[in-house]
């Protein structure tokens, strides 16, 4: 029986800790610590019974295990994204924007599938196109990178009626459909803020000027949260009137 080498163990656990990044953040937060601990125990066992070769085999098995077990968690995550308005969304936008092209490529790949790798590629592309289609039909998708929130509208009735943006996040509106009477759908929200230390939301007129891609709220608005409410539920302001209010307020 060999004594476990602390350096080898540390290196293996370090490598596995990087593998854990393949899992969604919420899963890592809940189970990542235990998984790393379990892997460390397995490493110690393998080192004692089979030495460095055993640890290498364990790492290879762990990588394969990650490849198999992480995608379903991301699929669940994507499904949750389609249903809610939370900010933890990563691939929706890209998939929705490229779904059609990917679908076309998938058809081409299927047509050209004369070998196993072409067939694998076509199936992968079809899977991505499917997720893109699911995302598109839900109308709302989006995003992200940490600290950013994006709301995408795929059609008038799929726009979220209300959503909240926390301080430090970034709001991006992506307009797909124009309302001939009121302008872009992104205009039809009442923006309310919740000043620090208060409970209620109030109409907000102190947003910084909109940029081409939206409003950047990172550290520039003295509020805890911003709430966007759709005009079907409450009165609304257009982007023009909001910008006039901003201008009048000297922002």
């Amino acid at each position: 029986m060999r004594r476990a080498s602390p350096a080898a163990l540390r290196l293996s656990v370090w490598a596995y800790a990087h593998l854990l990044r393949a899992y969604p953040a919420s899963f890592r937060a809940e189970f990542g610590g235990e998984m790393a601990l379990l892997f460390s125990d397995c490493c110690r066992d393998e080192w004692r019974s089979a030495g460095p070769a055993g640890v290498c085999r364990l790492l290879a098995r762990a990588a394969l295990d990650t490849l198999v077990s992480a995608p379903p968690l991301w699929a669940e995550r994507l499904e949750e994204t389609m249903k809610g308005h939370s900010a933890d969304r990563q691939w929706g936008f890209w998939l929705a924007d490229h779904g059609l092209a990917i679908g076309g490529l998938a058809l081409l790949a299927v047509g050209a599938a004369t070998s196993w790798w072409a067939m694998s590629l076509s199936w992968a592309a079809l899977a991505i196109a499917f997720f893109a289609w699911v995302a598109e039909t839900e109308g709302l998708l989006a995003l992200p990178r940490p600290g950013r929130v994006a709301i995408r509208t795929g059609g008038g009735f799929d726009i979220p009626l209300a959503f909240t943006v926390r301080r430090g996040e970034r709001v991006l509106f992506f307009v797909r459909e124009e309302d001939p009477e009121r302008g872009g759908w992104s205009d039809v929200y009442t923006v309310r803020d919740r000043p620090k230390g208060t409970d209620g939301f109030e109409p907000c007129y102190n947003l910084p000027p909109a940029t081409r891609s939206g409003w950047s709220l990172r550290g520039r608005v003295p509020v805890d949260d911003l709430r966007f409410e759709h005009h079907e539920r409450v009165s609304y302001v257009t982007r023009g009137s909001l910008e006039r209010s901003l201008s009048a307020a000297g922002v």
Partner: protein
Amino acid sequence: MDSPRTPGSFLPLPDAELEILIALADGEAHGYAIMRAVAERTEGRRRMGPGTLYTALKRLLAARLIEEVGASRDAGGAEARRRLYRLSHFGSRVLEAELDRLSTLVRHGRRRLHLLPSGGRS
């Protein structure tokens, strides 16, 4: 509170989840103990990786087939990060239903292979 779903609605259980429920059938255990129990029961043929194990535990917790019962302590008495899991009452009903289903399947399979007389039991 038990899950509103019936035990039959969980069947058939995925392999990993069935292995975990069997491992927890005789008492609480943490992830590493579950993994060892599965490896020992299958004589090393089934080695469950951490990803497979904890994604299955997550699903079982969400379905309330198992429950957390606190964290284990290491030999020195310090609080370890290992959470202990045990089979819930509802989980044991699901496991029982799955084992019944499997034993029926085995019995029918053996009968078709003429390994059992008609109406015989395995």
